[in-house]
């Protein structure tokens, strides 16, 4: 209990913390010695694993993971110690003096390597419908194949940092750019043995929603908090870009192996897919990514006899589920690869084969392999509308003509559909709470625990509150990241935050309005109106009246003021949880999503045969979303997600060297897309969906568009094929993801080599 004020030790100067990290990706620690470092001037504290005792656990999230490496290290850059000093220079000098000896083991640096060594986290699980083995056996055509999808770095605008300040009442104030502040609080409470209630997390402004700020922020903040608790001084812990990238969760690289049976029309009759994800050094969040990959393994397509099996490899780096569309995008891409290959083998246009396999209401083709039904009409409508609106057929013909006369540059066009599950298979992430306060002038304050990433969340919530109370949005203020009022919150990425928050606002508003209505009825009656049924009271245009009484003079502000004078509680908690969610990984069945959103993308690219460089000429996206207010934010979110996906599909390479060090250690060596890489033309159509509330769809557009970017890879494949001759159309183009200029040039060489060989053979 703290009756004292929460004063901060204002006179105390901030100390600087540095991490001592492992220079090896795998091995055991044979000795540690910090004696020399502790003697250095200005050094306030040096902490190693043994100094933390039983608190050396990153709870509650990854209870099996030590905060500071104790006996083993399992990735390069893993923190082994913390050094706290008065200046950066002193901290750096002391960190260099901490002597740690390692017995180095060979590192497992990539998926292939882990597969060869059979290093896995846990057992493989499956989702099965029918009997794919038999169906494939009976099919007129079959083939087997593989697909490799690379990792991706979130690459936030600034490296991670945290500031921890002890207060006079033995509490802690933590500032850090965390996407999930409640997780930060829980982790710190467990590590410093302070009740969660005594920890105040002030989420720093976060730089957009590209991921890498969930567990990693909690981790860094916990280390800072421990140092602050030990020294009793404010601590700032700032990571270098290189170190930030080493400890940040990356997108899971994936290897898919598949066996497919299909008929002459290109209809896939049976598919058996195995997804192997790079699960990193600890299982951590990777289960979610694996679930999402398997749950999206069907893409937007119905396959009668279908099995998807998933497993996690163990490697010596860090992966996690914090990137947008993590797992889902990788999983969905496998069916696109399969259908492209089916089309090429049959000599059919790829869009025809995709269309043939889409989920549809007829022929009982509208249920996912795990049993959740698919709403097929919107998907079918978006598909045909976008093909029309983007002039797909006309442009494809024009491209064929242009390609025929241009030997150096070829263009390609492709269309890809997305069916994206809204919400998170972890049921606890599908809930939201808000606090709505009415002020006596009729203005509204909405407080929520989610952070605002500058992506329009607060505007969307303000719109909802304004609509509920019939006031102008300028009368509403939305305070995001307010953990005082709403202690529990969901992560922004991977959940339908906007939808959940709006429903929670509606819930709180309903409670407040039910308190206001009787008072309004009395006030209207007192001003001479007839007997009024409180239930008929409406709130609109800043006024309060019955539906018939449009000329009411009672303003919303007057009503709230009167309600307060009559001692009415003008604050309400709103809460919403998505009903009826379940997901059983063991049996591979469930209703894991509150629903699906649909989107379709057409992408046209141009390929430079001399350099393998790919320029996206035009992208057309049609996506479910709102067409009203807030549409500009929805469009921006979709454009950003597409950009994230295009980078992943076309040039962001992530690789580790044999020592397990990340080769891309700065903004210089890791090329996120720039202004000049953006599609030269981008058309985004938001289509309101009749069956779902509009905000519902919009929230997830930000994630499903990451997957829609795979249309660029498919278009690139078409462009590469255009270098072949009509006779050799059956030759398959092997293209990894990302299709980097180097990979494209290698594919071109490979193809021309095989063209020559097949010409010689025939």
């Amino acid at each position, binding site marked *: 209990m703290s009756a004292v004020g929460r004063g901060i030790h204002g006179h105390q100067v901030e100390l600087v913390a540095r991490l001592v990290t492992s220079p090896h990706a795998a091995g055991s620690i044979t000795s540690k010695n910090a004696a020399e470092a502790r003697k250095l001037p200005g050094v306030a504290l040096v902490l190693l694993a043994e100094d933390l005792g039983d608190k050396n656990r990153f709870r509650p999230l990854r209870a099996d993971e030590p905060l500071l490496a104790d006996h083993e290290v399992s990735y390069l850059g893993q923190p082994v110690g913390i050094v706290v000093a008065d200046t950066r220079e002193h901290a750096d000098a002391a960190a260099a003096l901490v002597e740690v000896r390692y017995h180095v083991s060979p590192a497992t640096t990539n998926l292939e390597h882990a597969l060869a060594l059979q290093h896995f986290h846990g057992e493989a699980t499956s989702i099965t419908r029918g009997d794919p083995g038999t169906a494939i056996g009976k099919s007129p055509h079959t083939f087997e194949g593989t697909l490799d999808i690379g990792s991706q770095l979130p690459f936030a605008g600034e490296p991670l940092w945290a500031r921890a300040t002890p207060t006079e009442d033995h509490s802690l104030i933590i500032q850090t750019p965390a996407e999930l502040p409640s997780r930060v609080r829980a982790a710190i409470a467990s590590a410093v043995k302070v009740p969660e209630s005594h920890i105040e997390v002030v989420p720093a402004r976060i730089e957009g929603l590209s991921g890498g700020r969930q567990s990693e922020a909690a981790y860094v903040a916990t280390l800072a908090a421990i140092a602050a608790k030990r020294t009793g001084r404010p601590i700032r812990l700032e990571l270098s870009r290189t170190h930030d990238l080493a400890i940040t969760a990356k997108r899971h690289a994936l290897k898919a192996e598949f066996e497919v049976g299909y008929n002459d029309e290109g209809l896939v009759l049976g598919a058996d897919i195995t997804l192997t994800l790079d699960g990193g050094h600890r299982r951590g969040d990777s289960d979610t990514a694996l679930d999402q990959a398997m749950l999206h393994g069907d893409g937007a397509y119905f396959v009668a006899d279908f099995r998807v099996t998933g497993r996690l490899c163990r490697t010596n780096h860090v992966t996690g589920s914090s990137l947008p569309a993590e797992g889902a995008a990788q999983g969905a891409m496998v069916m696109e690869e399969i259908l492209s290959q089916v089309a090429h083998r049959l000599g059919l246009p790829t869009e025809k084969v995709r269309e043939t396999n889409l989920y549809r209401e007829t022929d009982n083709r509208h249920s996912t392999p795990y049993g959740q039904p698919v709403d097929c009409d919107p998907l079918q409508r978006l598909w045909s509308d976008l093909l029309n609106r983007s002039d797909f057929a006309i442009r494809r013909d024009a491209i064929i003509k242009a390609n025929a006369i241009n030997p150096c540059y070829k263009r390609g066009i492709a269309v890809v559909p997305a069916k994206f599950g809204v919400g998170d298979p972890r049921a606890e992430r599908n809930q939201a709470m808000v606090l709505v306060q009415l002020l006596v002038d009729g203005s509204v304050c909405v407080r929520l625990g989610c952070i605002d990433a500058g992506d329009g969340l607060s505007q969307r919530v303000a719109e909802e509150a304004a609509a509920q109370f019939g006031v102008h949005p300028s009368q509403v203020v939305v305070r995001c990241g307010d953990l005082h009022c709403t202690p529990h919150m969901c992560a922004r990425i991977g959940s339908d935050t906007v939808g959940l928050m709006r429903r929670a606002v509606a819930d709180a508003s309903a409670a407040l309005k039910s308190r206001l209505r009787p008072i309004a009825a009395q006030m209207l009656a007192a001003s001479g109106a007839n007997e009024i049924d409180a239930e008929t009271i409406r709130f609109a245009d800043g006024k309060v009246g019955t539906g018939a009484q449009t000329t009411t003079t009672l303003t919303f502000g007057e009503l709230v003021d009167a309600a307060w004078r009559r001692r009415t509680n003008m604050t309400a908690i709103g809460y919403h949880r998505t009903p009826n969610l379940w997901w059983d990984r063991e049996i591979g069945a469930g209703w894991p999503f509150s629903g699906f959103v649909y989107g379709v993308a057409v992408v046209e690219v141009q390929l430079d045969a001399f350099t393998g460089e790919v*320029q996206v000429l035009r992208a057309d996206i049609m996506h479910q979303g709102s067409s009203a207010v807030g549409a500009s934010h929805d469009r921006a979110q979709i454009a950003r997600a597409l950009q994230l996906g295009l980078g992943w599909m076309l040039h962001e390479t992530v690789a580790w060297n044999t020592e397990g060090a990340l080769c891309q250690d700065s903004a*210089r*060596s890791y090329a*996120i897309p720039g202004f*000049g890489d953006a599609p030269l033309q981008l058309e985004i159509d938001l289509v309101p969906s009749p069956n779902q509330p509009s905000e519902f769809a919009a929230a997830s557009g930000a994630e499903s568009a990451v997957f829609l970017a795979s249309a660029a890879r498919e278009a690139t494949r078409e462009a590469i094929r255009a270098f072949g001759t009509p006779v050799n159309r059956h030759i398959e183009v092997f293209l990894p993801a990302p299709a980097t*200029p180097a990979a494209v040039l290698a594919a071109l060489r490979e193809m021309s080599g095989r063209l020559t060989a097949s010409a010689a053979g025939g």
Partner: protein
Amino acid sequence: MQSRFTFELDGETYHVDGEPVNRTLAAHLHDCGFGRDDRFRNPDPWLGGAPLILLDSDGHGRPALRSIDAALTLLPTVAGRRLWSAEGLVDRASGGDTHPALERVNAHPEVECTWAGRARLITALFEGYYRADLELAGQINDQLDGCLSRTAYYEAMRDIATSLFGESQKRRHEAKQGSEMQGNADAFEQGRVDIFGDEFSALLAGDVPEPEDFSYVDAEKRRFYRPQTIVDLAKLLAQFPKAIIVGGSADLLQGRAENDWDCLISTDGVGDLRALYDHEDHWDIGAAAPLTSINEILGQPYPALGKILRRFGNRSIRNRITLGGILGSGRQDGEIAPILIALDAQVRVISLEGERDIPVARFFEGNGKTNLRPSEVIADIILPRFTADVLKSRGCQVRICETYKAAPRRELGTGAVTAAFAVELDTKGHITHAWIAYSGVADRPFRTRDTEAALIGKPWTEDTIFGVLPTLSREIQSAPGAKSPTPGMNESEFEYRRQLVITLLQKFFYQHPKGDGSPVELGAISEVIQPKRPLFQPPSAV
């Protein structure tokens, strides 16, 4: 020697007292608590940095408002200068009107989630707004290429830029007509007309701010000099042979700002080094002229040079970085060196002992080493003019020159391979001279003389090019440092670079198959973005 100085930011005077000479402007502003966010704490130049606007001079010697990256600017270099931040772009003369660039971005918060990103966009738009030469849609990329982040909505940014720059060009056009009617056309041409009627426009119509002679010593006794003449510069260099020459702070871009820099000499104040001189048979490019200024003057007469200059770094880097700085750093992946080789350029270095000219290809000696001796400084880059007369005197009729940069992304990336080619053809279409140079494949920018020799006397045909490819391939593999991948480069990347050596030469031929100097449009990009489309089309005169 003084130990304190001031600069002006957003109309307020900032005092600097004893701060280290190697501190960046960004670090200082962060320590001053400047800015409403943490933009200046740790900006990454490879992600667009933390731009400010600096009142500087352009290639024509007129005042210019240029975006610069505070993270790439050493604090003493702004002594006595005027700067603005993105939020500070309000017209104080009019009582605080928000600048249109700031206004547009404020009205569209969805184009960038982050303040840092918005600041980059605002400064890029602001600079473009006052640029007389930003007339075509295709130039927007070069102006906005510093807007780089995961949270940018690039397409919407392009829309904002198109409309804002279109408006500014319209006002420029109207002001031009106005001046012509008032018989003021000369003043307009000289840039002495206040076009927009705001505080900034008035500055542009005024006189060039000349950085004063200045010397500064910090609390650690480290020195910073800003001399005014080449002689003073050479004297200082003789006095302090280990001094670091500061032009556009290229070293900062490589992440270097070492504490043992105990003497810095800025070239900002040496007018002669910042200017370009037009001679009958050559150009002298001052080693301290920023790339933007060089492009303003030489982008038209040397299109290939302009093309590669515009793809270096981003706009705010090009506004500061100099040819002297790039060449002096001796980096092997420098993307400018190949085109200088293809243009047969020489580096003139001076010292108190005298001067000497070195061909660019011989200037580099591998792994960051150059031909530069201690106490020597790069003064000029001498660029021959290839007029019809000059070519005729050499027995040839046409010169074809081109450069290509293959990079993982279009801007702010170090190129995988940059290549530059030039051939001179005689009246029969036979090759009389050839220049072939690459960076990114050896430990220095590399000129393939054997391949060049193999081309001489041959006709400009596909067969000729294909015929020399084996020679080229062999020659590159025997180039110094070309045997194995450098650390951090994997096998496929290494193989890719080997490939590019061959394919870029082929591209050069296929882009100029006719041998008349006019390139063929190979791709379809121009159909989509119409780079030659004017941002403002004056209504046609009746």
